[in-house]
């Protein structure tokens, strides 16, 4: 007979709170850990962990982690000021459809003694990981699930083992017969019909004629019954580890020198790139780990165990790790090597290296470009109407390389771009976006989209430099378009937050006549305004300002404002 262990990580069996903890879920300190298990990544990790006990780890077809997670994200998105008032989301409520994973331990349980011992060991392991779970073992998938949910004590990591011996099956059948029909994992419509017919327990259900049941409630009811009692096979969808693009080498002897490291990197990278090319994918993120020594001191570590290596890194010892993030997916070895070199320069003194591993932790599908006749020239010499050019005439590939290099050199947080926002308050009228975190597709569409200027170029007509339309378009996202905002009405440079300054004003108009700048009073020779901005009441107290553009005697122009009603003056920005 088969031996199946079912493990249920409480994400909520259903919203009725059978596990007795749902009311306190929001306050449960372990909810964060649980949420980790509820992600797609979580199930993979759970499966990897479960592989310690069995190579055959599966989950039912009905599990739909991604959809549940997406729905949860959608529900919590865009909360703005109201977020503080939001009810704390109950992670279990969001993942109530979460079922369980199964371990087929038929052929392996003898390594651990008995099924009972194995189940107990799994339970202990989970307790050690501080994960509340229900565990049950039975001879079928359905029986283990039913026992897990309806026989296990929900408050402790108690294990339930139904006998898998052939001679005990009658007793098991009797025990299962007392369970509610809900334990069959039936669709809601079938459960509703059964309730209306007064069929509550499995015993009552199996007493009914099978064909009639199938005709009325669907074949799934009979199928589930048969699967529960081992009369039909229930296949499991096995969880396989994800495709890894990993390459590593343990060095026989210590090596040193940059060039050798670079060569080694190239040597390890080539097979990864080859595999990626075959799949039409490119590297987006490359993680490099090295076991090194500094000042003659070496610390050995287990590079295969993430937790261990992280610990070592965290304590500042000699496992070096860096990640190369890319702006566009690539399979260009030269480019990656150059980025590696940039990153390596920041590592500092290395005396010896003992182990190196490279893994492409993020990959993406490469953009499919039709090969040109003269492929050598394709990248640098655009063909009219075919090649892509960014707005400022930089080929996208070159631009991407530049961004990659800058990101590698400066860090990804430091390579960003301003994005205009339609906001009246200048401080909020733009935001900085980290370039490598942009939505790739959108960014490509907006910035790297094909511009057919080359056609004009080829016909000998240069495109008009700034048409009325383009000028209008540049103004589109501003809030003051009804006012026909002129191009020079906003400064080129903004202060992150306005600087308080001193000003003398004219009594009649309120315009500044002198302002204190760079340690001395400057005469204002011209001013424009006031422009009134009153907004932002939903963020905090409303902003009320009177803006003036001023020109001082040195020719410099500033954008200053008077705060209302306090009449304090601030410098908002400089015109050039």
């Amino acid at each position, binding site marked *: 007979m088969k031996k199946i262990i079912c493990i249920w990580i409480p994400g909520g069996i259903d919203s009725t709170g059978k596990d007795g903890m749902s009311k306190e879920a929001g306050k449960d300190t372990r909810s964060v850990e649980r949420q980790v298990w509820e992600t797609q990544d979580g199930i993979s990790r759970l499966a990897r962990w479960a592989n310690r006990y069995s190579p055959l780890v599966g989950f039912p077809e009905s599990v739909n982690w991604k959809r549940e997670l997406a729905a949860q994200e959608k529900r919590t998105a865009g909360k703005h000021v*109201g977020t*503080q008032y939001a009810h704390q989301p109950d992670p279990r409520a969001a993942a109530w459809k979460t079922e369980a994973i199964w371990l087929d331990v038929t052929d392996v349980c003898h390594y651990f003694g008995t099924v009972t011992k194995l189940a107990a060991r799994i339970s202990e392991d989970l307790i050690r990981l501080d994960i509340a779970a229900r565990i049950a073992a039975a001879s079928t998938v359905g029986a283990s699930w039913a026992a897990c949910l309806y026989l296990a004590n929900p408050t402790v990591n108690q294990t339930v083992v139904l006998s898998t011996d052939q001679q005990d099956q009658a007793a098991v059948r009797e025990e299962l017969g007392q369970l509610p029909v809900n334990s069959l994992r039936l669709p809601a419509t079938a459960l509703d019909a059964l309730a209306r017919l007064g069929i509550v327990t499995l015993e009552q259900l199996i007493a009914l004629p099978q064909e009639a049941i199938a005709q009325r409630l669907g074949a799934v009811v009979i199928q589930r019954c048969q699967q529960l009692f081992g009369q039909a096979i229930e296949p499991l969808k096995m969880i396989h580890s994800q495709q890894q693009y990993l390459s590593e080498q343990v060095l026989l002897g210590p090596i040193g020198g940059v060039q050798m490291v670079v060569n080694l990197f190239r040597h390890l990278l080539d097979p990864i790139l080859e595999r990626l090319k075959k799949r039409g994918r490119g590297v987006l993120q490359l993680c490099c780990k090295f076991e090194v020594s500094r000042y003659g001191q070496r610390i050995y570590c287990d590079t295969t165990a993430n937790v261990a290596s992280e610990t070592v890194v965290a304590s500042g010892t000699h496992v070096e790790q860096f990640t190369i993030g890319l702006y566009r997916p690539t399979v260009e070895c030269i480019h990656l090597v150059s980025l590696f070199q940039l990153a390596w320069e920041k590592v500092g003194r290395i005396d010896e290296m003992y182990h190196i591993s490279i893994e492409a932790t993020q990959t993406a599908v490469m953009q499919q470009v039709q090969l040109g006749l003269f492929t050598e020239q394709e990248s640098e010499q655009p063909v009219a109407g075919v090649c892509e050019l960014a707005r400022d005439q930089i080929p996208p590939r070159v631009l991407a390389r530049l961004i990659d290099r800058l990101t590698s050199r400066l860090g990804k947080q430091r390579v960003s771009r301003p994005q205009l*926002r*339609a906001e009246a308050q200048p401080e909020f009228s733009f935001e900085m976006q980290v370039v490598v975190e942009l939505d790739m597709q959108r960014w490509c569409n907006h910035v790297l989209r094909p511009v057919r200027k080359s056609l004009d170029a080829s016909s000998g007509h240069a495109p008009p430099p700034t048409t009325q339309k383009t000028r209008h378009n540049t103004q589109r996202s501003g809030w*003051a378009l*009804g006012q*026909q905002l002129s191009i020079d009405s*906003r400064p080129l440079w903004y202060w992150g937050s306005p600087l308080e300054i001193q000003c003398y004003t004219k009594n009649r108009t309120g315009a500044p006549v002198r302002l204190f700048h760079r340690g001395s009073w400057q005469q204002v020779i011209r001013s424009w305004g006031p422009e009134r901005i*009153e907004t932002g009441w939903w963020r905090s107290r409303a902003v009320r300002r009177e803006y003036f553009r001023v020109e001082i005697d040195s020719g410099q122009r500033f954008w200053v404002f008077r705060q209302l009603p306090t009449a304090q003056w601030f410098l908002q920005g400089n015109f050039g």
Partner: protein
Amino acid sequence: MNYAELHCKSSFSFLQGASSADQLVQRAVRLGYTALAITDRNTLAGIVRGHGAAVDAELQYIVAAELTFDDAPPCVVWIRNRSAYAALCRLLTLGRRQASKGNCRLSFEDLVSHGDEFLLGVIPDWNRLSTGASSDHHRMHAAAKLIDAADLQRYHDMFGERCYLLAELHRGSADLQRLDLLQKLSQQTGVPLVASGDVYYHDPSHARLQDVLTATAHGCTVHDIGPYQFANAQRHMRPLEDIAKLFQQIPQALQRTREIADICGFSLSELRYEYPAELAPTNITPIAYLKQLAWTGAHERYPQGIPHKVINLLQHELELIGELHYEAYFLTVWDLVRFARSQDILCQGRGSAANSVVCFCLGVTSVDPATTQLLFERFISRERAEAPDIDVDFEHERREEVLQYLYKKYGRDRAGMTGVVTTYRMRSAVREVGKALGFPADLVDAVAKNLDGRIAEGNLCLRCREVGLDPDELAGERFMELVEMLRGMPRHLSQHVGGMVITQGLLSELVPIENAAMDGRTVIQWNKDDLDELGILKVDCLSLGMLSAIHKCFDMLQQHKNEEWTLATIPADDSEVYDMICKADTVGVFQIESRAQMSMLPRLKPRCFYDLVIEVAIVRPGPIQGNMVHPYLKRRAGLEEPSYPNDAIREVLDRTLGVPLFQEQAMRLAVVAAGFTPGEADQLRRAMGAWRRPGVIEKFHQKLIKGMLLRGLSMEFAEQVFTQIRGFGEYGFPESHAASFALLVYVSAWLKCHHPAVFAAAVINSQPMGFYSVSDLVTDARRHAVTVLPVDVNLSDWDCTLEVEDGGTNNANKRLALRLGMKVVHGIRQDDVMRILENRGERLYGSVEDLRRRGRASRSFIMKLADADAFSSFQRDRRSALWEALAQERSSCEQPLFDLISASDDDVPELPVMQPAEQVEMDYRTAGLSLKGHPLMFWREQLAAKSVVTATQLETLGNNRYVRVAGIVLLRQRPFTAKGITFVTLEDETGTINLVLKQYIWERYYSVGRRSNAWLVHGKLEKKGSVIHVVAHRLEDLSATLGKYNPKPRDFR
């Protein structure tokens, strides 16, 4: 400085303007503007409000509108004369009729073809792509541009000197540049510049509200309205010095505002309204024809001879009608009633029209003027330049026939439904503001659901706090402030329940007409108050459920007992009927079935028709607020002697024992005690009514007090009369109206008393109507010994029917049982039922299989019938019927080829037997009622262990005793006159229990009170005669104990 604001939106520019016409006018007056044009976008819905407010404030009001076009820049049209007004109405009607509800679609060509008399100002900002959009924020922001010379030239070419260019500055970034451009455009095209404000709200404090409205219009939060938001709060009415400063470069643009205002001398008071006159034959004038009809009717009404009083009244009324030219109006109403009667539709006039002898003689009303004291001035008066308002009730299921008759007879360009402005209520305001502020949907929902229907501000704070929204935090503070501002603001235009306006000429030249949401209906842009203000007549074709029920009763009595009855032939003064009424046994009876009415009946003990008239009128906010109820009851019970300051007052109040209970009496008091003319008295009543304006009431108050003091009455009495009149202002009945209703009260009570089965069947068949659910009506019928039979697929129709019980031999003593119709089963459709009824014919269905094959019933339909236990006639209980139903093909009714194949060959297996409690539970789930028992009876032992008594036990317990009762909540009522008291009716297996919940108890147990439908109540028993109440002290939620019962109580105000 002389400045007239020529471009200003009110809240009738829905989701754009953030101030009411009153606020705009008052601010304009305060700031010293000399005229104001309220220019709502593509609508004239708000002009009457503006006109009324401006007349009160003595400000020049310019009738105007902002128009948008698909192919041209928008403009503001200012009206200078009547013909221009008619053209604007026609143009807006055209635009509205060719667009979907709430939208307007016009082209420049339309403007040109209608605009011969228009004076217009072109709005410089526009966006070609957004003109058809419902919000003009697109125009202002998304891709707005300044008008170009070519567009402006088009206007100039077509309208020449009547065309201006609006110069609007809002302290933007490029005001000077913008002004330069406008000046250049003006010079280039020869279109003069005129200054205007493009006002969206009267005061800067409303800018936030405008942001919220913008967010609502665009379906986003205020955080995301950047592209549509105004950058500053400068769209308000600015002080004159600010305006002068803004336009100092072009002072002539300011002067032109006044020039335009001078040209626009048109006022809405110039509108003359004519009623259709074609109803009179060609050789006779309408007034002569009306007289002829009235006198003929009088002879029919009084076959024994017309009383002198009636003759005098009739002459007086006809004279006044002729003088005020209302004859065509009366003929129209007469025609309407004639049509209804010809179609066998029950109808009856009510309201102030019942004060008219003419209406009685024309058959519009049924109140005999010989028996009541009529005050014709309550209906029509010389002093009041307001139109009479005749309300006619029709059977609610057949009212549409009458409306379509009117459309057909007068055409859509002469008849239209009156509009209704739907305003934001507390709950909708909470939802909109919450959404706009970006609060989580579940939080907004929780706040909205936690609200009581009517709520004071303090309570809103409390309710917010209860669900986790802190009103002391900034966001909560903003939320509260904005909700208060939004409350009461117009949201959209909808249609009146039955008001029809009909004109002699084109209605579309009087007011724009637009499409209603309902097919076949067109609606005008004004509501009933607007029509009153302008003296435009309307006929209210209202629907009344009780008329349908009475008609059905008459039909059933004819069918089953061969008795023929009409409203007029029901025997009067039947003591059995009054006995029943005195016992408050009035569930389902018209008007006197509410908790308040039922508790009044044993105290008032009506014994004649006039007592019923008083009963109808006394339980109203007017008498209650005027503190008239208790004095009347005391005097009626002989505990207090009526006193009258003088004989004139005695004459007015004698019939009601010195207490004014009717509007007419209150008005007559003003006449006899304070020297008012009848017309003035009515003006006083109206001034205190719904459309009150500051200052007006005070004027009347002083006059009333002065008049009474002059006539030697005491100050105390004078103030008391004033309070009473104020109470009647809005919430009192005229005697004639109460008399009209009392007739229906008596008829329905007579039917219930003598034919309870017929009455119950008719009322259930006429649902939705009245206070009680089907379950309550069935329970009540069973208390009256009516046998109620369950729904059965072979014996029931869609409606409830009557079956003859054994025992009766002739029509007179034939006992009728009530068979529930299939309509009581939740979730089944009438067409499904009609199909099985059609196929049932004479041959009853023999099995579920037969029903599926012959009745073409779908599986889901059969399952619903099975759940409702409707297969008793072929010995199938719920579960076995369901077992068979489940075996049917899902869409068998569409597969005739498989008809001959039996779907269920096997026998029904032994399914678990349903327990009585389960049966009752299932009854409630499927039909909301059970004939098998009451949910509480299964819990009685447990309840008794907790010392809970039943409804019948309450009768035997002593007064003021502490008791515990339990039951299912039937209805909750919170009349606003009850000072926060909530009246609740509970039901247990023995009867009903009346609860009184004081305000603090309601607040304390709010969540149980609002959300739970089954309560255990601790309270004190209060007995006054036969009236038994339990004054609640504590509530406990029983719904968890009762399990899956989910009866829905009815909530009333």
